[in-house]
C-alpha cells in the first residue's frame, strides 16, 4: 500500500500495479473499512481497480490526521470481515439496433456475432469501479478474444442501458450519454435510480453475468 497526496484535498492510496483479485480485495477492504469509520470531513471515497481516492474537506479534518489514521488502522482492516458481494444477472439484447457496433467487433475480432455473444455472456465480471457517470460499472476482465479499442472519437449519444466493450472491459451506460466504448447490446434493467437509496443497483466488488434475452 502506497499513500500519496492528491492535490490539496485528496489522498490517493495505491494497492497494486495491475488488475487482479488480490489488489481488488485490498481496495475493497480499505474502502469498506474507511467508510465504516464515518470520519467527519471525509467527503468522498472513490474505489477503483487498484487505488482508492479519498476526498476530504480541509476545514474539517487535516491531511496529517487522516494519514495517521490510515497508517494506524492497518490491523483493523485486516481483521475486518467483508460482507458478501451481490451476484447479479443482467438481461441483454445483443446486436441489431441494440448493438450498433456488433459489426465492428466482429470484423475486428474475426468472430461471428454468435461467438461474440457467447463469449461475452459466458464471463463472470467483477465491478472494478463505478464512475464516468452515476451507476456506470467498469466490469472485467473480458475474454481477450473480444479485445477492441475504444472509439477514437466518442459517439455523441447512446441510449440508456447500452452495453459496451473496450479493451478488456465491459460496461453499461445507465443513462443516455456520449460513449467511447463499442456497443454490442442493451439491457432494459434500470441501473441507477436517484429517487431511492442505495441509488445504484451495482456496488464496488459485485459480480455480473450477462444473460442473453
Amino acid at each position, binding site marked *: 500500500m502506497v499513500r500519496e497526496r492528491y*492535490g490539496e484535498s485528496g489522498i490517493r492510496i495505491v494497492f497494486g500495479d495491475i488488475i487482479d483479485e488480490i489488489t481488488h480485495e485490498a481496495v475493497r477492504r480499505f474502502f469498506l473499512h474507511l467508510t465504516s469509520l464515518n470520519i467527519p470531513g471525509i467527503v*468522498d471515497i*472513490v474505489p477503483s481497480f487498484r487505488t482508492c481516492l479519498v476526498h476530504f474537506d480541509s476545514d474539517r479534518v487535516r491531511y496529517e490526521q487522516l494519514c495517521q489514521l490510515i497508517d494506524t488502522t492497518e490491523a483493523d482492516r485486516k481483521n475486518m470481515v467483508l460482507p458478501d458481494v451481490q451476484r447479479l444477472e443482467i438481461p441483454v439484447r445483443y446486436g441489431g439496433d441494440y448493438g450498433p457496433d456488433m459489426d465492428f467487433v466482429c470484423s475486428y475480432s474475426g468472430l461471428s456475432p454468435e461467438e461474440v455473444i457467447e463469449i461475452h455472456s459466458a464471463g463472470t465480471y467483477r465491478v472494478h469501479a463505478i464512475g464516468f457517470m452515476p451507476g456506470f460499472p467498469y466490469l472485467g476482465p473480458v475474454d481477450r478474444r473480444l479485445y477492441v479499442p475504444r472509439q477514437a472519437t466518442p459517439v455523441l449519444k447512446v441510449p440508456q442501458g447500452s452495453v459496451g466493450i473496450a479493451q478488456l472491459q465491459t460496461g453499461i451506460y445507465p443513462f443516455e450519454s456520449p460513449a467511447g466504448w463499442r456497443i454490442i447490446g442493451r439491457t432494459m434493467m434500470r441501473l441507477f435510480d436517484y429517487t431511492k437509496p442505495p441509488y445504484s443497483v451495482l456496488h464496488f466488488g459485485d459480480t455480473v453475468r450477462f444473460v442473453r434475452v
Partner: protein
Amino acid sequence: MITVVNPAFLSMIVDNGRFGYGHIGVAPSSGLDRFACAMARFILGNIDSAPVLEIMGNGLSLLFSEAVTFAITGARVKGTLDDVPVEPWSRTKAPKGSVLKISEVLEGCRYYIGFSGTIDVDPVMGSRSTNLECRFGGYQGRPLMKGDVLELREVYDPVGHISVPDERIPSMGEPHIIRVLPGPEADYFSPLSVKFLSNRNEALFFKASARLNRTGIRLEGPAIQFRDEAEQSIISEGILPGTIQVPPDGLPIINCVERTIGGYARLAIIIDVDLDKLAHIKPFDRVILSVTDSEEAERLLQAKKDTVAFYVKKQ
C-alpha cells in the same frame, strides 16, 4: 415566485454540490464559482445550503411576482431592474411585478443570482444542483426554459445594505493564470514538455477550445509529449475537480464538476483557490498553467477563507 421570461444561453439551479456518492459515480455538479455562490448567499444573509442560479450569456430576464431581495455575483454583468441599473455584488430589492434584465456580460462567463429565500425544488441525493447529463436535481433535472416558474420558500426581508467592494471582486478576465500541483502521472511526460512543473518561472500557454462545459475544458496549444516508454493512458481511477488529464493527443482536459473517474494520465491538479476560475473560461481565452507547492496553496486558501469570513462577521 419568479417567472423565467428569458433563460439566456444556459441557466440552471446549483448549490454546494452533491457529495458522499463518489463511490457510485455521482459527481458534485456544484456551482463552478464557489466564491461567487458563497458571496451571493452572504450578501443576502442566506443559509449555506441555499441554491442559486448559475447563468451563462446575455439576455436573462426574470419577472418577480412577489417582493424579494436578490444579489448578482460572478461574471461582471450589466443589468437593469425595471430599467434602473442594478449594482452587482450587492443587495437589490425587487418589488412585486418588477423585471430583472441582464443585457451584457462584461467580464468572465458565469454569473450567479441568489434570492432572499430558498428556491423550492426537492434535493436529490442531498443536493439541489442540476446534473444536466443524467437529468436529475435542480429544476426537473434540466436547464431553465422560458415560462418556468420558480417558487421561493421562507422568503425574508434582509435589512440594510451589504455590498462587496470592487477590490474584493476577483478578476475573471483572461488570460486565466491557473496554478497547479504536479499530478500522479507527471512523470509520464517528457521532462522538456513539462519543465514548468519543476520551475516556477516557466509556464505553459494554452487557449481554451470551443469544447468546454461543466464536465471538462479542453485546451489547445503545444501538445504535451509523453515519454517514449510511458503508457498513454492509465487504469481508470478517481479524479477530483481541477484534475488536468492528458489524452494521447497531448492536449490537456481540465476536469470540472461532473466526473469522478478518469482514464488519462494526470499531469497536474489545480489548486483550490484557482478552481473558481474554471467558471469563467470562455472558448479561445488564454489559459496559463504554472506550478506552486502545497504550502503556498494552503496559504492562499486561508487568505481566501479569511475574505469570506470577513463578510460573514460583518453581517
